[in-house]
């Protein structure tokens, strides 16, 4: 009598490849960087749709932005902008430090960036409570809260990334070689994107 046997996965020779083939990627750009860039492109489109809605309300529908007697807190937003731009500097310092094997500098930079980002977010939430208008007060208010809120959510995501990176930094992760600090690099690119987006939000919502 013939008997059929099924090889157990553990019995297979080690050289045999299991699962899908290895992903192809360019040797000139890290897949992580490309992934973050594509993600940022999609995020820019998302912000673009919110900007379009705001400009439609302001320009096409010709709605005052904000209508009397409401006012946007421009001074607080300007200070918040300064805080966020500074946080880009500290983020860059963190990455510059780890590239030069300065672990303390990286930890300091990441923690400083985190707290500057947190300051920005708390100030924005505080601004919402004192604004004197709610999201249901009109299309202009929806546009304001939609756009600044969307940005706030991105800051929150950035803070989560920064918290993870800072924790890893204090646990001895990351090194001066490019492939050893990719996490900080990715978080940095994302953080600068959030920063640039805020500058545009500040300019279009509060200034122009």
């Amino acid at each position: 009598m013939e008997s059929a046997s099924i090889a157990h996965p553990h019995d297979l020779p080690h050289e045999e490849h299991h699962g899908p083939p290895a992903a192809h990627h360019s040797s000139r750009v890290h897949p992580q960087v490309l992934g973050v860039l594509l993600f940022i492109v999609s995020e820019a489109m998302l912000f673009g749709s919110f900007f379009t809605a705001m400009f439609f309300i302001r320009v096409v529908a010709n709605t005052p932005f904000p209508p009397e007697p409401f006012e946007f807190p421009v001074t607080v937003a300007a200070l918040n902008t300064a805080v966020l731009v500074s946080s880009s500097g500290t983020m860059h310092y963190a990455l510059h430090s780890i590239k030069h094997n300065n672990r303390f500098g990286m930890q300091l930079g990441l923690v400083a960036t985190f707290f500057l980002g947190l300051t920005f977010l708390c100030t924005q939430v505080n601004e919402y409570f004192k604004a004197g208008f709610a999201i249901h007060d009109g299309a202009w208010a929806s546009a304001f809260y939609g756009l600044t809120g969307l940005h706030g959510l991105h800051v929150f995501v950035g803070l989560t990334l920064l918290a993870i990176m800072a924790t890893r930094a204090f646990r001895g992760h990351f090194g001066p070689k490019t492939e050893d600090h990719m996490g900080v690099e990715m978080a940095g690119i994302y953080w600068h994107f959030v920063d640039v987006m805020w500058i545009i939000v500040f300019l279009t919502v509060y200034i122009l």
Partner: protein
Amino acid sequence: MINPLRSEQEAFRFTLIVAVLVAPIVLAAIIWDSGVALGVAGGLVVGLLFAFLIRREDRRPRRVDLRRRDTGDGTARILVVANETLTGAALRREIEQRCQGKDAEIRVVTPALNTRLKTWASDEDGARSAAAERLEKILSTLERDGLSAEGEIGDGDPVQAMEDELRKFPADEVIISTHPVGRSNWLERGVIERARERFEIPVTHVVVDLEREAGGAVT
């Protein structure tokens, strides 16, 4: 063109540029009103566009000063730049004609042609391996014909690939091989004119009609 946001450092630089550009608009809004700020923003956009156009204009006639090294050994040094037409008989004839009766050093450059999207994403491995394959073919054909040649894969922009190579290889002449008019992307992009504008050494254009050559081979 390369992706300007390839690293955190470049993203940081971009952030600073945006901040610096926005600062005068914000100042105008604080000192005067948002109407003036809008004017400043418009002025900045126009100024940036103007600067961009001027830079492009400046770039066009850029002439590269490549000091020709006279080796004095009577050897003809030829740089051949081609891609799909590398295997064409017309190009081979042109090279052989120049090498008749004298020593010659031939350097072949194959630009790693890529799509704009892949160039932007730095995904050029496929383009480089395709270029390497074509280069391998022409080098073995030339060797079979008794001509010794060396080859390199160059930048995706053919003129840039020439410039890169000319900095290392003191060529007396450049031969650029393309498809005929109407089928050649290089001719459409003015590669021959740009090369003649940029380099002082003679640039010869060879047209290779691969379709006709293939037809001739059959009949």
